[in-house]
């Protein structure tokens, strides 16, 4: 589904990614762990199509060169990034945003747009699964939301848009243990053989709930170690020092 070969990225002449390789197949869950500043968010941002990076190497998504796709086309084709720091957008109503987003994606996929009634039904169902109070949805997007509420809102968007490749950038940071379980349940119930996850995290605790097939350690813009779920437990004990 996703094939990254020798990816390098620079910002303002500063090397951030230095020859990163990663292959993700449908049905897989990959976790990326690594110290602060190792380039995890940069990788996620590049996959989402964010501007401002000088990029070398190759990224293929379903066989297509990712660089040929705009940010919105990537989203329409099923790439979803749950941001590490979801942005506040004053004056934009959360419900209106969700609906515009869903219908843009549906339109691009050649599906019919959802009318208000069916949309509200869908949002109600998905938000109650995540324990999100409906009142939030009539507020301005993320404005005044707590850290945890913003993160839940990202997962809500994921569940509404139904992506094929979901990238979660430190979605677990700032969540209390109950919220963490709800988010993990949200991911687990969405996971199937046709979609894939790339989960960026610092903590083993999320991986106790979402079992990854692979764990990668990222350091200085490179994957320095890949292992199975046990690697996470080891990292939790010893820290990154042994790997970097």
């Amino acid at each position, binding site marked *: 589904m996703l094939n990254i070969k020798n990816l390098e990225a620079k910002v303002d002449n500063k090397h951030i990614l230095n020859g990163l390789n990663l292959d993700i197949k449908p049905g897989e869950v990959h976790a990326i762990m690594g110290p602060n500043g190792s380039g995890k968010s940069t990788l996620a941002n590049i996959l*989402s*199509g*964010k*501007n401002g990076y000088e990029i070398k190497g190759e990224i293929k998504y379903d066989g297509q060169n990712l660089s040929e796709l*705009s*940010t*919105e086309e*990537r*989203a*329409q084709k099923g790439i*979803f*990034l749950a*941001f590490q720091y*979801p*942005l506040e*957008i*004053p*004056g*934009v109503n959360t419900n209106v*945003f969700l609906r*515009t*987003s*869903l219908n*843009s*994606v549906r339109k*691009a996929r050649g599906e019919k747009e959802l009318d208000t009634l069916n949309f509200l039904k869908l949002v109600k169902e998905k938000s109650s699964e995540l324990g999100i109070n409906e009142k939030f949805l009539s507020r*301005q997007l993320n404005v005044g939301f707590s850290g945890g509420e913003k993160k839940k809102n990202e997962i809500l*968007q994921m569940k509404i*848009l139904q992506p094929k490749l979901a990238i979660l950038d430190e979605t677990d940071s700032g969540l209390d243990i109950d919220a963490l379980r709800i988010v993990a349940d949200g991911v687990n119930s969405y996971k199937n053989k046709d979609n894939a996850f790339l989960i960026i995290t610092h903590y083993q605790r999320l991986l106790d709930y979402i079992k990854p097939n692979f764990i990668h350690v990222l350091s200085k813009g490179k994957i320095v170690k890949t292992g199975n779920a046990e690697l996470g437990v080891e990292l939790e004990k010893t820290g990154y020092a042994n790997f970097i």
Partner: protein
Amino acid sequence: MKNFYDFKVDNIEGLSAQEKEFRNKELDLFNKNGFPNKREEAWKFTDLNTILSKNFANITNDYISLKEKKFELIKEFDHNYLIVLDGILVSNEFKFEDKNKVLIKEYDYKKQISVSNQNSLNLLNNALATGGYNLEISRDYKFKKPLVVYNYFSESIKEKIISYKNSLILNENSELTILNYTDTKTKNNFFVNSFDYLKLKKDSNLKNIFINKDRCNCYFHNYLKSDLEQNTNLDTYILSTGLKFNKMDIEINLNEERAKSSIFSALSLGSEEHQEIKSSINHNFKNCQSYQKIKNVLNDQSRGVYQGKIFVKQEAQKTDAYQLSKALLLNDNSEFDAKPELEIYADDVKCSHGSTSGSIDLNLIHYLKSRGIPEKEAYQMLINGFLSEILEKLPEDNLKKFLVEKIGRQINGY
């Protein structure tokens, strides 16, 4: 040097000798300095003389209004209306109201209203104004539906100045919402120089909204003078995107206790449009409130100006005055100038002002796009979001829906 204008009082029919004399005197005063430039206090940022001389060859005041065939009315919400063609009151309809409570007639030029700020365009208006209306609402009468004032302009109007005066009196405890709706599609250039007088008597409440139906090649100057008595409320909404040039010169006198005035503006200026709001809020009495929030979105080559003056008399204690302007510049070629002026002589006063301008946050655009929303729509959402604070304040559900839809179209560039 040949002037680009030629105005004659003799072009106006039916004036008494006395009226002629007054008007000629005003015209002479105007001619001394001509159209304003940056030397005039009210025109600090703009040289109107140059703007007009570039866009007009010879402006005159000798127009003949041709009777238009059919006027197109708004269908989206129930309303009463006045139809004004080239400044002249043509018809009126108050079918939702008790007609005994509404007095409507042509403006009476025998009863001139004095203006505290005699800028050159007011002098010109005194000299040339014809037409206009006089509207008075009886005490205790609250309008059931809004009043739309349709301002039509003939297709044939070209290189003309159109001048008129209107007056509106709200008697005690009356209430009204007006939509001033300018409707012209003409590609011809013309200049409108109007003067409105509003009197709000004790406990009355007026919402006064300005919007245009379409883009047009017209140049507007509108002087709005209001006198507010005790416990009155005046809300002014400026949504008049689409004109080549527009200046609203707003004078508000808070003359008695608990008079309250708000100015809300949401403008999304298209390419090469120029809009100015100049306000003078005079706190002449204690315990009055004024509030101004101006939001401008500026596209390519557009220009926005906000000159907000707050004047607080010595006896106007417990004044609460607020003004804030925010501009969103979509392009390096657009410009926004704001200048607050505070003149405060009382000591127990709450007064705040501020002004910011900036461009669209591309991180927000990225966020929206990363959810599948196309770039153009993402921009529209953010622009709408920027203006929403004002749009939320619009009154009456059906009217509000109509206006918000109109503004949505303006954001998309009509």
